[in-house]
């Protein structure tokens, strides 16, 4: 059962009609295959056209889609032999940020990312993907291990933001994020970050200060949520669609601004319609990027990473060739 977004309603209506027809034709000898074919083609066209013209606000909704593949899905579909590691050795284990050793098509890596959870219970366990200081400190610990054992670091970013709560502040949320960013920049091994869903502010940057930053086609990445921006600048969260537009949150906009390096294509209708195809495309992209970075010295890698961030925003926007994995 697909859960439809508001703007997908026309598609939903068509798909419901198709399902109805199918059910009705069961056991009857009326030939409706021509009608079915016509409706299916119409529905597919509509989906393609809807997704070709998504607004930044619609993309935000796709990026937050409850059925969108998450970290745990990618662990299953993209990587082998995942060995999860837990705890920051100071305070606790934060399941909003997961990580551990993993193998990507025969290559040993360190995998770190946000997990939002799927159902109510797991969402609570993973705190909706909102990391606490201990989560970021665990990430720092894993990056340190990766550096010492020559493992490239692959991060999958998917968070609405770091957790805004009393205990997070008490334990130094800001410091943990700053240090995690610093740990990314200090890595002697290659690092590739991919925004797979939402890239929410500092909580995302802390795992995305890499030399290569990828984004799934319908992911969003921003300094503040469109609702947050709207409620501050427009004084009402209802202006979120305008805020999303103005802030430039889509992969396509960010590639143009030079903030991300590559867009990983999603299946028609978004990643949630075909998780396996999305995983395939992500795996292909990560493999290519890691190939391209292999053989570079720690010094070269740090230099590439540093230059990348020192230069961002200083030049006129460049047009990035859009590459698609599907």
């Amino acid at each position, binding site marked *: 059962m697909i859960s439809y977004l508001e703007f997908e309603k026309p598609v939903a209506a068509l798909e419901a009609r198709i399902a109805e027809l199918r059910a009705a034709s069961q056991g009857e000898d009326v030939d409706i295959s021509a009608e079915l074919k016509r409706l299916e083609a119409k529905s597919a066209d509509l989906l393609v056209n809807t997704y070709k013209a998504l607004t930044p606000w619609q993309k935000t909704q796709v990026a937050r889609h409850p059925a969108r593949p998450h970290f745990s899905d990618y662990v299953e579909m993209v990587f082998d032999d995942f060995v999860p590691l837990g705890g920051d050795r100071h305070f606790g284990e934060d399941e909003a940020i997961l990580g551990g050793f993993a193998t990507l098509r025969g290559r040993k890596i360190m995998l770190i990312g946000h997990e939002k959870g799927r159902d109510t219970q797991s969402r609570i366990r993973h705190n909706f993907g909102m990391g606490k200081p201990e989560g970021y400190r665990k990430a720092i610990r894993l990056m340190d291990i990766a550096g010492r054992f020559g493992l490239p670091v692959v991060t999958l970013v998917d968070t609405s933001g770091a957790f805004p709560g009393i205990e997070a*502040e008490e334990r130094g949320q800001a410091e943990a994020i700053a240090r995690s960013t610093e740990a990314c920049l200090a890595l002697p091994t290659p690092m590739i970050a991919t925004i797979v869903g939402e890239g929410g502010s500092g909580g995302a940057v802390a795992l995305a200060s890499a030399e290569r930053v990828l984004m799934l086609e319908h992911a969003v990445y921003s300094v503040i949520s469109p609702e947050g921006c709207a409620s501050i600048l427009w004084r009402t969260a209802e202006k979120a669609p305008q805020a999303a537009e103005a802030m430039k949150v889509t992969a396509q906009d960010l590639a143009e601004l030079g903030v991300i390096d590559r867009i990983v294509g999603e299946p028609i209708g978004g990643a949630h319609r075909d998780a396996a195809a999305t995983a395939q495309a992500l795996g292909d992209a990560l493999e290519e990027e890691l190939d391209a970075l292999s053989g570079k010295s720690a010094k070269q890698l740090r230099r590439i990473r540093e230059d990348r961030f020192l230069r961002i925003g200083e030049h006129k926007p460049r047009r990035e060739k859009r590459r698609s994995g599907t």
Partner: protein
Amino acid sequence: MSWLTRVRNSLPFLEKRETPDNLWVKCPGCSEMLFTREYEANLYVCPRCEHHGRIGADTRLGQILDPGYALLPAPEVREDPLKFRDSKRYADRLKQARANNAHPDAFTVAAGTIEGQKAVVGVQDFTFMGGSMGLAVGAAFVAGAERALEDKCGYVVVTAAGGARMQEGILSLMQMPKATVMTRRLKEAGLPYIVVLADPTTGGVTASYAMLGDVHIAEPGALIGFAGQRVIQETIREKLPEGFQRAEYLHEHGMVDMVVPRAEIRSTLAKLLHYMSPAEAA
């Protein structure tokens, strides 16, 4: 300027009058009326309740550096890169902020000495669009760090900001890793990086260069945190504890080394720079 003065000054037949309506100021802490000259002499700290008022870049630099310091030129950056517009155009907001400010953006850098110790000092000014961090703030922070590396001296940064400048979208967020590249370079060069956290320091500024100092000094009562208090309250739906996210609270939780009254910041910095002198390294 009171409305009466405004009306009076707009009448061509009356002599224009500079009313001394800034003779008195109200303390934002205890609402006591203070004699402006006395308030200034006390470094904009209320003599009654010790509330530390927010101060501009030049005032701050003058309080920290020895006379004769040199301002660094503000780096050129792309302006309004997103052509952002909310209820107002960002370009107009910038123009307005500049009209009310001595500097072109919210971060000003100077090179000089602090009680004779060579230092580069960067000051974030809350009065300029809430001190918010965009391309200009990031570039100025980098320029200050580069100057410290060149002069082989310490880098002192006074932070005061609501966070990232939303009108520059993702580019403002990218200033976090950008600034962090420079704090790492200072560290590798064996140079001290000291942060003075002033009221308020929140958001992406706290979550990057404000929390990466070798030593953190906070001004009494300064609001310092990652998430805004309203956001936290909306998330947890509980009353926030007394003194939450204030300098003293951060000190208690190990996030700052010391809470230092404004009058002693200069001498404290001098002492720290003395102990962390790069010449002593290696």
